[in-house]
C-alpha cells in the first residue's frame, strides 16, 4: 500500500493539478476572509455574548473565530475537483494504458486513486487552513484582535476540514471513474453542487439531508461545533453518507472500467 501511495503521489505531484488547485483555493479563501471582515465591520452577530473586547466588530468569541478559521470549508468543491482530476488525467493524457499494464486489475487502480485522493484531499485542507490562519491572523492582529485566540481554535476546526476535504476527494475519484472524460466530469460535478442540488433541495426540502451537498453541510458541523442548520444529519452521519456516495460511485466506476476497452 505504501508503494502504491508513493507511486501515485509521484504521479500527482509531477502534474500541475495539485499546485494549480491549491493556489486557486488559497486565493478564494483570501477573498472569503476579505468578505468576512467587511461584513464584520458592519457589525456581525455575537454568538456567545459574554465579555467583549474593546472593539465589538473584531471577531473574538470562540464561535466567531471558528467561523473565520472554517471559511475554507465552504470551498470543499476544490477537494472534489482534485479527486475528479486525479483519475481523469490518466484518460486525458492516455497514460491509462501504462497504468493498466502496471495494475491490470482495474478495481485496484481505482482503489489506488481513492487512497491518494483521500490523502491529498486532507493535505489540501491543511494548506487552506494554514492560509486562513496566516491571513486571518494578520487581519485580526491589524484590527486589534488576538492571534493567539485564533490559533487556539485551530484544533476545533482542523478535524472537520480534513475530514470533509478527504471525503470529497474520494467522491471526486468515484465520479471520475464513472465519467472518465475530464471536461464532462468537471462540468457534471460543478453543475451538481452549484446548481442542481440547490434546485432539488429547494423543491423537495426533505431530500436535502440525503444529498451530497446536504451531507457536506452536516459534516462541516464537526468544525462548527454544533448544528448550524436544522434538518441535517449529525456530522458523523453526514460524513458516512459522503463516504458512501464516493464508494458507491467508485464501485460502479470500477465495474464499468473493467469492461472498458482501452484502445
Amino acid at each position, binding site marked *: 500500500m505504501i*508503494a*502504491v501511495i*508513493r*507511486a*501515485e503521489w*509521484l*504521479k500527482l505531484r*509531477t*502534474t*500541475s493539478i495539485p499546485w494549480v488547485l491549491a493556489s486557486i483555493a488559497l486565493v478564494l479563501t483570501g477573498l472569503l476572509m476579505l468578505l468576512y471582515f467587511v461584513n464584520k465591520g458592519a457589525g456581525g452577530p455575537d454568538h456567545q455574548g459574554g465579555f467583549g473586547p474593546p472593539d465589538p466588530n473584531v471577531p473574538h468569541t470562540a464561535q466567531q473565530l471558528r467561523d473565520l478559521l472554517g471559511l475554507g470549508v465552504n470551498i470543499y468543491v476544490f477537494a472534489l475537483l482534485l479527486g475528479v482530476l486525479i483519475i481523469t*488525467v490518466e484518460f486525458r*493524457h*492516455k*497514460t491509462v*494504458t*501504462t497504468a*493498466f*499494464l*502496471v*495494475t*491490470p*486489475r482495474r478495481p485496484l487502480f481505482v482503489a*489506488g486513486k481513492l487512497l491518494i485522493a483521500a490523502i491529498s484531499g486532507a493535505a489540501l485542507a491543511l494548506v487552506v487552513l494554514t492560509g486562513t490562519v496566516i491571513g486571518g491572523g494578520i487581519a485580526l492582529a491589524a484590527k486589534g484582535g488576538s492571534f493567539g485566540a485564533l490559533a487556539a481554535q485551530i484544533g476545533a476546526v482542523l478535524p472537520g476540514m480534513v475530514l470533509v476535504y478527504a471525503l470529497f476527494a474520494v467522491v471526486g475519484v468515484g465520479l471520475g471513474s464513472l465519467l472518465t472524460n475530464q471536461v464532462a466530469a468537471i462540468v457534471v460535478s460543478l453543475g451538481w453542487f452549484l446548481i442542481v442540488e440547490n434546485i432539488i433541495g429547494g423543491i423537495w426540502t426533505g431530500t436535502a439531508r440525503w444529498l451530497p451537498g446536504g451531507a457536506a453541510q452536516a459534516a462541516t458541523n464537526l468544525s462548527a461545533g454544533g448544528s448550524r442548520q436544522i434538518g441535517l444529519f449529525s456530522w458523523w452521519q453526514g460524513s458516512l453518507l459522503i463516504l458512501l456516495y464516493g464508494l458507491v460511485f467508485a464501485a460502479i466506476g470500477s465495474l464499468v472500467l473493467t*469492461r472498458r*476497452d*482501452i*484502445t
Partner: protein
Amino acid sequence: MTGPDARLALRSCMPTAIEIRGLAKQFRSVRAVDDLTFEVAEGRVTGFLGPNGSGKTTTLRMLLGLVSITKGSATFGGKRYVDLDHPLRHVGAALEATSFHPTRRAEDHLKSVALASRIPLERVDETLDLVGLTEVARRRVGKFSMGMRQRLQLATALLGDPEILILDEPANGLDPQGILWLRTFIRHQASLGHAVLVSSHLLSEMEETVDDVVIISQGKLVLQTTLSDMANQAGTGTGLRIRTPEVDRLTAVLDAVPVAWRQTAVDTLVIDRATPEWFGPFAAQHQIVLYELVNERSSLEDVFLNLTQGFDAANPMESGAGQSAPFRTPGEPS
C-alpha cells in the same frame, strides 16, 4: 495442443512464451480479429506483420488485458496477463498510442512505474542508460521528440527486466540510425533468451531483425513461418529476365520447350522459373544474341504484399493451398 498445422509442429520443440488460441474480437459490427492462432517462442524474435488496420494492435492489446477478448485465449505460459503476479517483471510492453504526461520528467515517469511495480529504483537509471536517454532524464516528456518517446516506451518495457517483450510498431518515428539501433537492441534481447514479439506494417523494416513471422490480414492469420522459410519461398518465385535483339527467334525456340514466358517490353522477355544455368547453354545452342540476363527474385516485401493484399478475407483457408498460392507461378515447368 498445437493443432494440425505442420509449421506449428515443426516449432513445438521450442518453449512457448506466448500462445494465442482462436482469438477473436468483435467491435460492434466490426470483426477486428478473427480466429487467430499463433505462438511466440522463447529466445526468438517474432515479427507480427500486417497492413495498417489488420488487427495487430487489437491483438496485442487483448494479449495485455487492455481490450476484452470476445473469443479464444491469449496467454503467457498458460496465464492471462491479469493473472500474472508481477506483470512487469515478466512482460514488458511498448504500445502504440500510449502517451506520457507532458509535464512529467522521463525519470519520474519511470520511477512511478517502478514504485507501483515494486521494481528497485536503480533500474530507472539502468534502463535510461540502456535506451540512451540518460542525458534527458530530467527533461519533461512534453518536449520529447517521437524517437525519444519510443525510447522511453522501451525503457518502460524493460524496467522489470522481463523475459517477454511486446513492441507495437517500435520503428515508427525513428530515424535510420534509430532503426539500426532498435535492430541491434532487439537482437540483443533475443540473444539473452528473451521472447520478442514485434509488430510492423513493413516487412522490410523487420527483415533483418526477426526469426519468425506471423502475417495477418483483416484480422485473420495468413501465414506463420520462419523468416528463412519465407525467404526460400520468395526465392522460388523467380523468373529470368532476358533482353535480346532477337525476340522473335527466341520466342519461336521457347515455344518448343515446356516453359511459361511473357513479353514485358519490346526487347524483353521473362521466363518463369528458369535458371541461368539452363538458359545460358540453351541460348548458346540456338545462337541467340543476349544483351542482358537477370535472375529476377521477388523480394520478401513483394511476397508480404502479395500475401496481405491478394488475401481473400471472405475465403481465407478454404482455398486449399491458399498460403502458398502467391508463390506458385502459372505454367511452371514439368
